[in-house]
């Protein structure tokens, strides 16, 4: 994975985690998790739609996107498992690095950034759950890119 394959803010976060040991990595991720703010009720309220549930995420993470005036995405998350600290940390990282980012950069972001940030100790289930959150964000970006391409072809 090269920094060029990542949106700039995500590349910065990956760089921050590059040389940290296990303990410091955990501390840094806990700091991210502490900044987690649940999706506003104006965007989504419980019970959250199943369509927004991250597949196979044991922490019951939900992903929501809204469109910003500049055509980029604003990301929102809910994590129903109160002990889902990793999911909360990842949600904050995704929001802080991909909200407002160009859609093509979001869609092309290398998913290996997850492992660069969390380390290779992630369990398979946890890794897939967190990857699923990014997957849903990228899916939303691709949908919009495809819609725009279709619109451009018709016009």
């Amino acid at each position, binding site marked *: 994975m090269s920094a060029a394959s990542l949106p700039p803010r995500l590349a910065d976060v990956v760089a921050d985690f590059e040389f940290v040991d296990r303990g410091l990595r955990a501390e840094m991720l806990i700091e991210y998790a502490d900044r987690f703010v649940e999706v506003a009720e104006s965007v989504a309220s419980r019970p959250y739609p199943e369509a927004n549930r991250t597949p196979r995420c044991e922490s019951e993470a939900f992903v929501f996107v809204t469109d910003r005036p500049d055509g980029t995405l604003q990301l929102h998350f809910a994590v129903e498992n109160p002990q889902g600290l990793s999911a909360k940390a990842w949600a904050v990282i995704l929001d802080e690095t991909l909200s407002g980012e160009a859609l093509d950069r979001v869609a092309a972001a290398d998913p290996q950034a997850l492992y660069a940030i969390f380390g290779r100790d992630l*369990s398979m*289930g946890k890794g897939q759950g967190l990857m*699923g959150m990014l997957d849903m964000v990228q899916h939303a970006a691709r949908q919009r890119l495809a819609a725009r391409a279709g619109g451009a072809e018709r016009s």
Partner: protein
Amino acid sequence: MASTQILPDIQARGYARPEVLVTTDWLVDHLGDPDLRIIESNEDLLLYPSGHIPGAVQVDWTADLNDPVRRDYLDRAGFERLMSRIGVTRETTVVFYGDKNNWWATYAFWVFQLFGHTQARVLDGGRLKWEQEKRPMTRDVPAFAATQYTAPERDDQTLRAFRDQVLAHMRAGGKLVDVRSPQEFSGERTHMAEYPQEGVLRGGHIPGAKSVPWARAANPENGTFKDAAALRAIYEGEIGLSTGDDVVAYCRIGERSSHTWFVLTYLLGYPKVRNYDGSWTEWGNSVGLPIERG
């Protein structure tokens, strides 16, 4: 501490081996007991450093219980080193707790049983109940004097099942419990949409297996185990197990199924339950093994 102490609250639930569970009330009264070692094992590695039960050590599935190269658990020497590091002797009673209804705690418990550390308990309700009751938590990581711990060789025959044994078990019509989600059991899902690293090439389940997702054994509101009558209704009433059955439980990699192994072995008293830790990531990737869908 009496190692076989049975707590009235637990005994009332009708378990076969009630001494295996301790309550949050009991544990809070035994914090600092030198004969006790509290062990936290989580799926989410951020939880322990964010706060844990005072005096608890962390045993991590990846770093502590697995061989770093081969797909296998730590060996005897590795287990002895781990026990020494966390200050445990053969006489120490270890109490496991963790997140996700004690899913990973029971997995660590199972690995400890491969080395015969029978002085082992599980905190009923685990981390969730402890937090809900606002019990004391700390971020201080305790240090214990290293111990001399002599373990027996790992016993891979009694509690663990391997692929060829499971195949023979299946052909003989033995009881199999698939504890994954209904979607994984049916074969509808092997992996996440759009994510290429499936982990497994074929979906479905081992022919003859019955589906009981592991978490059904727990009360979702606080992570405690359901009482024996409720557990029997699930495992005996719904899928026809009975106490004398030779049972193999499996999931994707053997961690969720260790929870079911714990329930069947200790709470319902089944004498012969094995955990197939190769589980679906081995079976669903193996050439030529039979698979059932739907």
